[in-house]
């Protein structure tokens, strides 16, 4: 009897492995369901009231701000505490020469989203990590200095604002030599172009934890091998 006991091993017991597997699988199921609901809070769009409060207090409330964020100036600044750039929503600025009400802004953004889907932008571009890298990443395209005042895009399209430059370009992209692989003409109408620009501006205001990494690196920083990342 004593001899038999010595040979008893839990490691060869089926019941031990069965119970362990049941525990790990069961825990993983609960964890994934919990994680799914936790993510909902991170990706839900905020309200206009949240946005006004965030601007007034100068601190971020939602990762995804309300559509009315198109009425504000959006900047991209290095955050020392977080170790990467974060969108900073600043003072009000007109978008296509006016301030958009929450309803109008939501409708415009919706049109932009439908256009982006219908024209299959993701076939070449990347939006929030989804898509392709045949053409430039559009996640923070609104913040690209090339489209800002003094950048080559406003001069090329003969416009005075970022939104007008983007809208004009989108309606006739094959006319402007922007990239080695030029964008084809997709038949985007003037109204659709406005929607797409609103969509791009809103997307740039989303806090993506610094994605795409090193977007704001300047040519000089690349040359010296420097980085903003800590």
């Amino acid at each position: 009897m004593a001899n038999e006991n010595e040979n008893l091993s839990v490691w060869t017991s089926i019941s031990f492995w069965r119970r362990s597997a049941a525990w790990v699988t069961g825990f993983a199921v609960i964890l994934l369901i919990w994680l799914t609901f936790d993510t909902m809070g991170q990706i839900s769009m905020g309200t206009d009231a949240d946005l006004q409060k965030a601007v007034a207090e100068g601190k971020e409330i939602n990762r995804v701000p309300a559509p009315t964020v198109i009425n504000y100036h959006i900047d991209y600044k290095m955050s020392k505490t977080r170790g990467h750039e974060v969108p900073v929503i600043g003072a009000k600025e007109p978008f296509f020469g006016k301030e958009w009400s929450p309803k109008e802004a939501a409708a415009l953004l919706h049109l932009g989203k439908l256009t982006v889907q219908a024209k299959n932008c993701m076939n070449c571009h990347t939006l929030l990590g989804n898509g392709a890298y045949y053409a430039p990443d559009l996640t923070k395209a609104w913040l690209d200095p090339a489209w800002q005042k003094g950048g080559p895009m406003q001069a090329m399209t003969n416009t005075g604002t970022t939104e007008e430059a983007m809208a004009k370009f989108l309606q006739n992209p094959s006319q402007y030599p922007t990239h080695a692989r030029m964008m084809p003409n997709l038949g985007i109408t003037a109204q659709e172009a406005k929607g797409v620009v609103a969509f791009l501006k809103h997307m740039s205001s989303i806090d993506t934890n610094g994605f795409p990494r090193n977007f704001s690196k300047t040519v000089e920083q690349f040359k010296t091998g420097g980085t903003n990342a800590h």
Partner: protein
Amino acid sequence: MFGLIQPFTDVNHSFFGFLNQGPLTLTIFLHTVIVLPMIWIYFSEKKKLKK
């Protein structure tokens, strides 16, 4: 301490955000909840086998 515990800087506070703040916090948490019950299962199985 070795950057293991860092200040919470996430936008939306959540349990998972807290777990992901340091390089080892998530690992330690998962090992705790998976390995500790397995140790308990091990000894309970050993007791059963001895009987």
